[in-house]
């Protein structure tokens, strides 16, 4: 099974305002796939579609090789879900929640549960409805990992948590993943965190998948060039000029954002009588922002 | 969402049983009104029916079971088969018919119209039978049996009418009447009835008004007297004539006060329905001519006529009668098996409906 998750022209509409059209996700098995996108771009909706919680209008969804939502309950034996809004039964205590989850998940491993429960310092007798946001985040991750999934669907698992809790949760996640090689599909607004742990990136914008590629090719695919007395017309540049602005440094320098830059492309600038001052790599966040800007510009 | 559910279910939950009871009482009131209306209308119709019959319709005269039956000639064929069935049943139940008693008894059977799909049979005594659809032989036979009983009651003397009722339902199914009598006996507060239930046969005679009350303690035991007074007079507690004695009897358990109030009450005898079961029992014991002997002379007291009809002394008749009543004790109320299965089935149906409910939220 080459891909943990694979959808072909997935179509979904909620009311008149929002629509997901011909969405083609392909999440490689074993990857840690970061799912980026501004608010309202359909990230949570997509995750709920992948889990068979929402009924698509068209298209196919395959999770771990099973078609969804038909083989949903067999898939859930191997998929763990951490939703954006906590979904546990409020009246339960932490111990009950763990016991209930264990009863339903055949691959549950109490060793993992106990270790994480200690590591997270969770109070077994606390009631779920009275857990803090951090404690809830830890509990949800504990339940997800203790069921030994092959795929973790995490919808903003650490957003809104304080750094210490975030560190504990991510450490547990990475520790589990590096041990089992499980696939992770994680949506988050904490781009720097995704930058550290993801090796794949998917970017959603207004219900469409605008980019899906490995992290490193995403990051060095887009560069910021510092050019002095740049030509007015880029002409037949070997790269794609996404945007250009007046530089804030020395007079006469411009900042060009380009895609598909290769080191050999220096000669172009000599050719047009400009001097390439500097090639700046963008981090994931800048790349993401630029990508969105150009994607929306292209579609206008 | 839960709040909506709760409100919805409370409404159906509360309204259900109450609605059910309210509907029943409304039902009963409707039926009584309809009966009253029909009765008045029938009486009016009877006044003019004789005159109308003579003028408009050729009368056919038929004879059955000693009765002269007059009816519209158009309906004569239907009446023919019914009369045969009627005669056969009457003979079976009455044995030798008290023919001289029925000599000039005439029963006019007239087919009135009572609205779409309903036919009404009106007989001389303004009794009527409302039948849905076409008139079938056994409806007519039942009506004629009823008329015969009324005629017998009318001719059987006023004592018999008071004792066993003007309709004298001797043709009714004894089993049903005996069961009703059993319930009457077990729920009556009167001392003789309770004693009769306990096996004291002479007390049965008193309860059936076939013997005078000799027990000095009166009709009621002290507690029962108080209970009866309380139930009967609880709405007139502020009526000056009754109030003081009522309070004395109910609050202070003053028996004499209770007794004095009870004087104005009707004597707690068993109903005419119970009396009919005695007559039926006597006929059963007396063989073929029992009714003839019973109706031959209406002057002696009922108990003597019963003894003559049954051919046994009253106590042994009542002993038999009491045995029959006790044997007619209704079955203990059970949840019928089919209802049990239906309930479980419905629970399963609802569960399956729930399991099948859509999973798209």
């Amino acid at each position: 099974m080459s891909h943990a998750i694979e959808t072909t022209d997935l179509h979904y509409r909620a009311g008149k305002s929002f629509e997901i059209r011909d969405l083609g996700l392909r999440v490689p098995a074993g990857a840690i796939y970061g799912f980026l996108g501004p608010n309202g771009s359909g990230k949570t909706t997509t995750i709920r579609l992948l889990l068979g919680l929402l009924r698509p209008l068209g298209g196919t969804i395959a999770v771990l090789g099973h078609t969804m939502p038909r083989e949903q309950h067999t898939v859930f034996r191997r998929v763990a879900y951490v939703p954006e809004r906590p979904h546990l039964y409020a009246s339960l205590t932490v111990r009950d929640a763990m016991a209930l989850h264990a009863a339903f998940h055949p691959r549950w491993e109490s060793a993992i549960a106990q270790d994480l429960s200690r590591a997270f310092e969770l109070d077994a007798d606390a009631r779920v409805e009275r857990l803090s946001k951090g404690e809830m985040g830890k509990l949800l991750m504990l339940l997800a990992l203790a069921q030994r999934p092959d795929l973790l669907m995490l919808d903003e698992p650490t957003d809104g948590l304080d750094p210490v809790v975030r560190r504990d949760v991510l450490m547990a996640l990475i520790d589990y993943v590096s041990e089992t090689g499980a696939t992770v599909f994680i949506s988050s607004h904490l781009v720097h965190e995704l930058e550290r742990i993801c090796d794949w990136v998917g970017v959603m914008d207004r219900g469409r998948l605008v980019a899906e590629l490995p992290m490193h090719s995403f990051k060095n695919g887009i560069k910021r060039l510092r050019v002095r007395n740049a030509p007015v017309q880029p002409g037949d540049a070997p790269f794609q000029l996404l945007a250009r602005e007046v530089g804030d440094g020395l007079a006469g320098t411009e900042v060009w954002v380009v895609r598909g830059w290769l080191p050999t492309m220096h000669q172009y600038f000599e050719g047009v009588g400009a001097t390439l001052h500097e090639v700046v790599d963008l981090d994931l966040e800048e790349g993401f922002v630029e990508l969105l800007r150009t994607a929306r510009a292209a579609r206008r | 969402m839960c709040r909506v559910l709760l409100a919805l279910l409370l409404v159906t939950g509360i309204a259900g049983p109450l609605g059910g009871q309210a509907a029943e009482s409304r039902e009963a009131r409707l039926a009584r009104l309809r009966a009253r209306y029909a009765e008045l209308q029938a009486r009016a119709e009877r006044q003019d029916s004789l005159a109308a019959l003579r003028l408009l319709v050729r009368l056919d005269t038929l004879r059955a079971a000693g009765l002269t039956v007059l009816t519209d000639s158009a309906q004569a064929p239907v009446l023919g088969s019914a009369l045969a069935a009627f005669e056969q049943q009457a003979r079976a139940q009455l044995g030798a018919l008290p023919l001289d008693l029925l000599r000039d008894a005439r029963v006019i059977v007239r087919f009135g119209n009572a609205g779409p799909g309903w036919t009404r049979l009106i007989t001389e005594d303004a009794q009527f039978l409302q039948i849905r659809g076409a008139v079938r032989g056994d409806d007519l036979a039942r009506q004629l049996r009823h008329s015969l009983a009324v005629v017998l009651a009318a001719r059987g003397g006023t004592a018999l009418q008071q004792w066993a009722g003007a309709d004298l339902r001797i043709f009714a199914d004894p089993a049903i009447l005996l069961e009703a009598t059993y319930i009457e006996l077990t729920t009556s507060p009167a001392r003789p009835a309770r004693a009769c239930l306990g096996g004291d046969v002479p007390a049965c005679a008193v309860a059936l008004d076939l013997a005078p009350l000799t027990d000095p303690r009166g009709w009621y035991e002290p507690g029962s007297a108080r209970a009866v007074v309380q139930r009967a007079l609880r709405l007139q507690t502020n009526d000056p004539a009754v109030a003081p004695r009522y309070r004395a009897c109910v609050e202070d358990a003053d028996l004499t006060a209770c007794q004095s109030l009870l004087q104005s009450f009707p004597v707690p005898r068993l109903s005419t329905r119970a009396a009919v079961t005695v007559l039926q029992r006597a006929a059963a014991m007396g063989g073929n001519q029992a009714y003839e002997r019973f109706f031959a002379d209406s002057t002696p007291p009922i108990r003597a006529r019963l003894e003559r009809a049954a051919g046994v002394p009253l106590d042994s008749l009542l002993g038999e009668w009491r045995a029959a009543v006790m044997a007619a004790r209704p079955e203990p109320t059970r949840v019928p098996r089919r209802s049990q299965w239906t309930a479980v089935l419905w629970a399963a149906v609802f569960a399956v409906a729930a399991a099948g409910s859509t999973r798209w939220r």
Partner: protein
Amino acid sequence: MFAQIFRMQGRASALGVTLAAVAGFMVPIMAVQRAGFVNPSGWDIAEMLTMVESAGSLFPLLAIVLGLLLAVAAWSPDHRGQHVYALTLPIPRWHYVVLRFAAGTVLLIPVIAAVWVGGLVATDAATIPEGLRVYPGTIALRFGLAALVAYAAVFALAAGTKRTAAIIFGTLVGIILVQALLELAAIRVDVLRYTLLPLTDWPGPFEMLFGRWMLINV
């Protein structure tokens, strides 16, 4: 799996079930007491039986309340979480619903037992006159079936979406409105008789709830 669901649902309805059990135990005793069968001073049996019957009408009410309580206890946790937890369990939806239903059904048992024991205690303490019988077993069985059907009906309603609940509630109110309008317009058509009343007689579902509940009878 069932044990966990049962623990959760049991704890959620523990208070309700206990109260219902206490009520179930008291109703027969109160019925017999009020009707005067406990060291009776005198016999007015017709009246006493009517009082037994009127007290008996608390049984169907208790059955409905119990059914309501258990069904709500079964479904309110899921409704609060938009059913997401249940829908992401590795078991088919019907299996989950059956577990929920079974848990609620088991929780009926203590109340039915209470009604039965209450009936036995009440009829034991009562002085039963010649000719009358006691029916603690029949009442308990009938109460059990009535509560089961009531529970199942509300369970199905609560399991459905808001839309189905609205539809059912709407038709119910609609029928009652039509009947009221007809009566206003003095048109003598008994709509209820052909729509709601059949539900209350055999083979309708709510036959058990209606009719006479007589702990002591002929």
